[in-house]
């Protein structure tokens, strides 16, 4: 396991980092390091796709928090052991390729698709295509990453001891107070892991913007892919990847430092 992680994760990431400091258009790492790639990224429009990725990812996390908290709460507290069957049902779509599910939405939302086709045939209302906007991209992100928020959240909520909530109610706390002072703080480790996962995955997403967003949004991962394939500029692609790595790695490490994994998975 350790070997796999060293050879398959640490090694490649180091290599990308080294490439990021090589002069543009080169395919070898044996050259004088330079900061030119980073300067170019800041000087040109590349930082826009970086910022829009971060912005869309932040919105995704926010929306998913609002949607998933009540659902996760209900699965743990209201439906008990049946909640786990519901969790399986909600996570099972993960086993269908992301592109396919997004294509399903395209056929659903496109002009002449399920929504606009039905409206036109049955009600005579003409609607335009609902695709190829940043809202459509955001919609796709929320849809695809929902299980990644929901599952850690249910783990987090199931860690909140019932006695603690009862005690709070006995002491005269209102529902809102219990939610704010007991439920959310104690479920925080799970919520944070969910938020972190969705944020990083959404910021690094590629298919949602490509399939649902059209040309309305360019996300950072698309830029990276473009540099490596069409532009054949490995160093620049690497420099963009390094920005991603710094963002994802930085966030992940800060968070993991504060969380005891034994506590979450072992529910001790």
């Amino acid at each position: 396991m350790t070997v796999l992680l060293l050879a398959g994760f640490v090694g490649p990431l180091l290599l990308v980092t080294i490439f990021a400091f090589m002069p543009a258009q080169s395919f070898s790492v044996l050259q004088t390091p330079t900061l030119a790639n980073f300067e170019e990224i800041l000087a040109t429009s590349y930082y826009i796709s970086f910022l829009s990725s971060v912005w869309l990812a932040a919105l995704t996390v926010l929306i998913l928090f609002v949607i998933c908290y009540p659902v996760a709460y209900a699965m743990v507290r209201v439906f008990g052991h049946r909640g786990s069957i519901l969790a399986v049902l909600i996570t099972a779509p993960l086993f269908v390729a992301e592109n396919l599910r997004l294509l399903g939405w395209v056929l659903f939302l496109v002009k002449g698709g399920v929504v606009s086709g039905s409206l036109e045939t049955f009600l005579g209302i003409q609607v335009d295509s609902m695709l190829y906007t940043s809202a459509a991209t955001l919609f796709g992100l929320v849809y695809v990453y929902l299980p990644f928020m929901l599952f850690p959240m249910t783990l987090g909520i199931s860690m909140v001891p019932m006695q603690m909530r009862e005690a709070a109610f006995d002491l005269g706390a209102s529902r809102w107070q219990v939610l704010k002072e007991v439920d959310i703080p104690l479920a925080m480790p799970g919520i944070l892991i969910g938020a972190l996962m969705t944020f990083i995955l959404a910021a690094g997403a590629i298919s949602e913007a490509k399939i649902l967003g059209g040309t309305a949004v360019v996300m950072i991962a698309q830029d990276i892919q473009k540099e490596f394939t069409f532009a054949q500029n490995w160093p620049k692609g690497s420099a963009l990847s390094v920005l991603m790595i710094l963002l994802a790695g930085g966030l992940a490490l800060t968070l993991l430092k504060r969380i005891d994994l034994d506590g979450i998975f072992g529910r001790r």
Partner: protein
Amino acid sequence: MQEISRRAKFLYGSAIALLILFMYLPMATLVLASFSRSKFFRFPIPAYSVKHYGDVLESLSIRGFFWTSLFLALAVAVISTVLAFFGALAFARYDWKGRKLFQKIMLLPILFPQAVLGLALLLWFTAIGVTPSWTTAIFAHLVWIAPIATMVIAIQVYAFDPAVEEAAMDLGASRWQVLKEVTLPILAPGIFSGFLFSFLLSWANFPLSMFATGADQTIPEWISAKIQSGYTPQVPAVGTLTMLAAALVMALGYLAAWLLSRRSSAAG
């Protein structure tokens, strides 16, 4: 104890039902589209046919992608389950120096954008002089999937009392016997779901395959290429078939798990 009113229960229930509907809606659209006779999807569908399924089943190239995807997923599932079994014991059971660090490094690949990881791996393969093909893709998938399988098995390990193993040792069992007769059977459900998860995640993976398979192509890659350049009604047909395959694997998995648990409860 706070009683949950019937009305609240009904509200929560409907919210979850809506969410599940939302998760499956695009897949239902796909299935519908696969039975449409026309070249372009229009709703309501003017004429139904199963012609595209015939075309798909006859296509030699699609059959080839199917076998590539299947072998890839099987290899990933087998290797990742073995790695994850030992990984999970190291993650959750044994106390050793560096365990907390191991736990964190373990989670990093899961928290990492797959497109960036895939690219880094592509650079890595090129640097060490390996030509990417579906066999290198096994390695790429493992980097992301083995940690997930480890988490799945680790949850089971946390629930398992180490005293059982010690008792077996005290009764004179060798290390090997303990592993074979005590540890493996008790962890079997976790190992089994780890295997299922690995298989299904590899089967549906696109971002890693995109960079790591080289000239070989998997079904998700084919679908993605077709979505971007030239939609044909074969896409939803292939999609429906892959979903059916995934559902079948899951159903067989649950059936086997259910039979196993029945047999062990009958024996115990």
